[in-house]
């Protein structure tokens, strides 16, 4: 049983009248890579911000491991916020001083040819993402929280990001929480998927098991069945039925159940506006 490095207890946040997070209780063991997915506006970024300390929750707590050092919590927000007027070098230096680091390694920056004298304002979004990644990796983070930045990045920078992530996870055993809903290239990295809807996690499963429990059936005609249909998509010619939770016994039904990639699975959940039932999901 791995050490729990971060957990939340009944975390709730409301902006005005709108309840954005509704009593979330979840645990993150050390070294786990987690994908947080969901439709826009369901509260994913808010959740991450609460974990990072940017927003204080109205209710509930964020509990870190006892020996957690705040300086080793890395957070990249989706607004990629930083002080625009500063130069890159100044920004690195500021970060170094604020987090009491020994130094900020620059290889990533060099690989995208970011010069220290450039103003942060002049960086493109992809470059900015690499900049923030540099900052955050210099902290030797125990926990790394990355909001949706992938879609800002081109293929090359994305590759850099993935490599950097993998390295960090390998060398430091970092716990990574990523918000992602574009699924470019990073879908193999997370071991666990949290799907958020209306301020709650409706799905919390390992990617492996998720792939075993969601299948697709394609029919040319309508299909009436009493199998649990998560989502149904009808194009002109085909009707696609996504079944969840799937068990092996269902194969006896005779239909051809197709396996799905993780992005497809998540799309099905989101498209199907899946609602979590009160009882635990078939565990």
């Amino acid at each position: 049983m791995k050490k729990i490095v971060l957990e939340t207890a009944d975390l709730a946040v409301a902006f005005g009248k709108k309840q954005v997070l509704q009593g979330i209780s979840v645990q993150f063991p050390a070294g786990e890579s987690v994908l947080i997915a969901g439709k826009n506006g369901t509260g994913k970024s808010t959740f991450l911000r609460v974990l990072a300390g940017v927003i204080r929750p109205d209710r509930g707590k964020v509990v870190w491991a006892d020996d957690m050092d705040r300086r080793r919590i890395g957070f990249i927000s989706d607004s990629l916020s930083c002080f625009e007027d500063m130069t890159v070098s100044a920004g690195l230096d500021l970060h170094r001083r604020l987090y009491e680091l020994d130094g900020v390694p620059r290889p990533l920056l060099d690989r995208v040819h970011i010069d220290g004298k450039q103003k942060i304002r002049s960086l493109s979004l992809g470059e900015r993402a690499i900049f923030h990644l540099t900052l955050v990796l210099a902290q030797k983070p125990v926990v790394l929280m990355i909001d949706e930045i992938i879609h800002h990045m081109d293929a090359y920078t994305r590759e850099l990001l993935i490599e950097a992530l993998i390295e960090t996870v390998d060398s430091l055993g970092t716990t990574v929480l990523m918000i992602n809903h574009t699924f470019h290239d990073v879908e193999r990295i997370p071991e666990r998927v949290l799907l958020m809807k209306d301020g709650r996690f409706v799905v919390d499963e390992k990617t492996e098991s998720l792939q075993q429990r969601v299948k697709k059936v394609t029919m040319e005609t309508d299909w009436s069945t009493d199998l649990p249909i998560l989502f149904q998509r009808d194009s002109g010619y085909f009707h696609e039925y996504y079944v969840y939770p799937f068990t092996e016994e269902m194969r006896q039904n005779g239909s051809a159940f197709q396996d799905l990639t993780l992005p497809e699975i998540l799309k099905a959940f989101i498209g199907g506006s899946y609602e979590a039932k009160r009882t635990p999901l078939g565990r």
Partner: protein
Amino acid sequence: MDIRIDQKTPIPAYLQLVQSIKLQIMTGRIKDGDHLPPIRDLAKYLRLNPNTVARAYDGLEAEGFLESRVGSGSWAKLPKAKTDSLRLGLLESECRTLLEKAFALGFHPEEIIKTIDKVMHHEENRTGNR
């Protein structure tokens, strides 16, 4: 290393990795004593979580196909004692996979055997009767 992880199958990535490396070792593509890539590099290459790769390496080590030394990395091993049964086991599981797919497509056993024969002949001709 020629490894491809199939996203679509429900088989977990680490298992696929284990099977793939095992296959390569057993077929000699990876020789006994060859240096296996470090977890990080393989993870980067395959775009996998290093934990996954680590799990695979642990699994390989448990089955005797891998030997790791702290500081030096990992080495491939060909566990002689197990080879034959393992080879057979691998073949059987591949057959099972093939049969599953064939049945799913609606083929009868006779058609399947006929097709296997056909393909085998093709391969033999192509590779020169191995």
